[in-house]
């Protein structure tokens, strides 16, 4: 038998809470079991079989929370085959085991290091140029896009099982991740430029130059593999301190 459409939607909804019970021993294991549970209830009417099925999905699991939806979908695909006696109970577990690492890499690279920073930079630039509606619009587009991708991956996993990799390969997410990273860097450069021009216009040419020097020092430090957050704060406070000092010196004259 196959899992009804309404149950699949319910499982997808529960996938959004994959990390809600994150723990050091099993990581996303409770979230995974919670997400797949409605499907297992449909597939196994015998309480003993249902309990055994839920237990096997309580094993350690860790993936990127977005790309993991492909694995939840694929695990249901395999559980349908287990319930029909077409494959051993180890099938869904092997599927989870093999895909969790590589799909975590795809998700980290595309969503965390590509799409999200890009939309963050877009929101910052949009807000500088057009005001707060641009911020709301950026958040909206990012969320529609990522939820659509999560749903697409979930469906692809459920429909095609192991073939989900072919579908995923067609999206070429690692290549898009590289493009988004480059585009995000360009946006950040434009933001720094706008900031410098605006500071120069409002306070004076020195303020604009100072802002550019602070930003450039931060970029150079990052190039030498400085840590991101301390570097950002150091560059910001350095710029502010020198700016304040300049103000005092000028005011004292």
């Amino acid at each position, binding site marked *: 038998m196959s899992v009804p459409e309404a149950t699949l939607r319910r499982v997808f909804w529960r996938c959004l809470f994959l990390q809600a019970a994150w723990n*050091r*021993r*099993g*990581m996303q294991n409770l979230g995974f079991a919670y997400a797949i549970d409605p499907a297992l209830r449909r597939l196994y009417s015998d309480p003993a079989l249902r309990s055994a099925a839920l237990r096997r999905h309580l094993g*350690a699991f*860790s993936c*990127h929370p977005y790309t993991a939806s492909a694995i939840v979908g694929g695990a249901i695909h395999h559980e349908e085959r287990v319930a029909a006696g077409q494959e051993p109970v180890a099938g869904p577990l*092997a*599927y989870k085991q*093999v*895909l*969790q*690492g*590589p*799909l*975590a*890499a*795809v*998700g*980290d*690279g595309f969503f*965390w*290091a590509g799409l999200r920073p890009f939309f963050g930079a877009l929101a910052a630039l949009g807000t500088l140029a057009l005001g707060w509606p641009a911020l709301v619009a950026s958040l909206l587009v990012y969320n529609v896009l990522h939820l659509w991708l999560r749903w697409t991956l979930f469906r692809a996993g459920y429909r095609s099982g*192991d073939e989900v*990799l072919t579908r*995923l*390969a067609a999206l070429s997410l*690692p*290549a898009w*991740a*590289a493009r988004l990273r480059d585009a995000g860097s360009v946006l950040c450069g434009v933001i720094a430029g706008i900031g410098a021009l605006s500071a120069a216009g409002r306070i004076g040419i020195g303020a604009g130059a100072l802002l550019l020097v602070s930003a450039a020092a931060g970029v150079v430090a990052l190039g030498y*593999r400085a*840590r991101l957050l301390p570097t950002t704060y150091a560059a910001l406070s350095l710029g502010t301190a020198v700016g304040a000092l300049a103000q005092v010196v000028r005011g004292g004259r």
Partner: protein
Amino acid sequence: MIALARIDERLVHGQVLVGWVPHLEARRVVVADDEAAASPLARAAMTLALPPGTEADVSPVGDVDWGALAASPQRILVVLRSVAAAERALAGGLTPARTPVLNLGNLHHSAERRPITPSVFLSGPEVEGLRRLAAAGFRVEARAVPLDDAVDLAEIERRWGEG
């Protein structure tokens, strides 16, 4: 050259491709694992995850020509699944002269393991194995991602004793 050898049950994942590969400027990832090498699904999944400009090989531990990797002009990241696999690799030629640091990434919780770091749990025999690898000349460190602080073997042993 072999830039780093890493022990990680999850093999190729985000920490490896987004964290270590850019940090080490590695152009090639060699996954030395019998189980993954035998699974077409695992091989396809790992290839799919690679960023542009990075290559990957998946081979059984016993089939890797460590001398050739060490002599290669490319910077290579080696990933092994377990401490036992690292010992087999050492016997096969993955020597400290070819790669001085042995990194522990993710070894998950199980009944016989004790917690060392948030991502590394070790059993008694595994700590023994790490002692032998350190005695052979490796600098053993537990460190999930490049920005984490490295936990050395002495500290690993101390935490294991407490756990």
